[in-house]
């Protein structure tokens, strides 16, 4: 039988565990002064705690482990395996994207191989690429007349894709692209064509 109020018993335990507040300590002190049962319980718990502390320290606290942690083998599993898998997934995805970019025909693309910029679509108007040789204008107003255009024109260029991974690294993928343009038959016949240079 425990005649002491459970609330007081709780205060005693809180005091022994160092968790008691000042107000609770005052309340406990008053109770210990006027209640011999509470005082006896406090003394018993205090002695019990002291002995239990010694016993457990003897049993568990003063020993050191007998194995040397520096000699154990490294874990078999790689650290952070998911992160590694994600990298592979990212690279695989980037390669797949590059293959797709080669396989899917595009209407017209400006050439831009500067890192930090993205591929820019310009609609369906064909654009003559800078590195393709062009005929010179004959007149000063920029109009060309009776210029013999090559019947087959080739556009070459490089598409640059930027792929951002989760760590903020940017992987640049360059795709070489060549496009062959055939002039319509009426142009090939030597009619004047107008081109703004």
């Amino acid at each position, binding site marked *: 039988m*425990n005649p002491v109020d459970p609330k007081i018993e709780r205060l005693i*335990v809180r005091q022994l*565990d160092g968790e008691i507040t000042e107000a609770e300590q005052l309340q406990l002190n008053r109770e210990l002064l006027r209640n011999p049962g509470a005082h006896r319980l406090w003394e018993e718990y205090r002695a019990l705690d002291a002995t239990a502390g010694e016993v*457990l320290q003897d049993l568990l606290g003063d020993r050191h482990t007998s194995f040397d*942690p*520096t000699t*154990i083998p490294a*874990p*078999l599993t790689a*650290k952070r395996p998911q992160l590694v898998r994600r990298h592979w997934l990212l690279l695989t995805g980037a390669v797949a994207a590059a293959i797709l970019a080669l396989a899917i025909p595009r209407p017209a693309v400006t050439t831009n191989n500067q890192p930090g910029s993205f591929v820019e679509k310009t609609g369906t108007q064909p654009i003559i690429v800078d590195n393709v040789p062009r005929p010179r204008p004959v007149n000063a107003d920029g109009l060309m007349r009776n210029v013999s255009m090559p019947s087959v024109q080739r556009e070459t260029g490089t598409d640059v894709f930027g792929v951002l991974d989760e760590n903020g690294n940017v992987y640049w993928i360059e795709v070489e692209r060549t496009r062959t343009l055939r002039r319509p038959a009426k142009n090939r016949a030597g009619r004047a064509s107008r081109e703004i240079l």
Partner: protein
Amino acid sequence: MAVKPAEFDPEEPVVEAVREGDRFAFAELVRRHEHWVRGVIFGVLGDPDRTEDVSQQAWLAFWQRIGELRDVKRWRPWLYRLARNAALDAGRQTSRQKRNSMQWKLEAMSSPGPESAATSLDRSERHAEVLNAIRSLPALYREPFVLRHVDGWSYRQIAEVMDMPVDSVETRLVRARRLLRECLQEKLD
């Protein structure tokens, strides 16, 4: 509601180093925390003989599975669970081959030290009684009681690793003492 971990834990860099495979950091972590890990295992098993072996298993599991630890701030509850699971596994094996391991402890305790023989015997007997009483506690109460006494943990720290409210820890500690007192009084009577 379970307790959240403290804002800054000085052990976090050590645990990070262990995660990177630093064996010396691991050795340091073991040295600093082996007491309470053994306390957890003793709290579950109540068998001091097996504490050392199971403790090694728990630390080995910590080393091998550190890659699975997602939040370094929660390394203590994670280690607690590893230790507890290792103890539970060992407990299942032990229950099959029940043995009484207290004899060595009683013999060791009754060997006289520098104190007078009578005092030493009294003290040893008292220790043996209290140890038996602690071992007879249900694991539910023994675990927080051991953690409180081995490393002097606060209610909050115990609540954090055991993933339970602070009030529950307090209740268990009150009941642990009540049961210990009743157990020891029965022996005296």
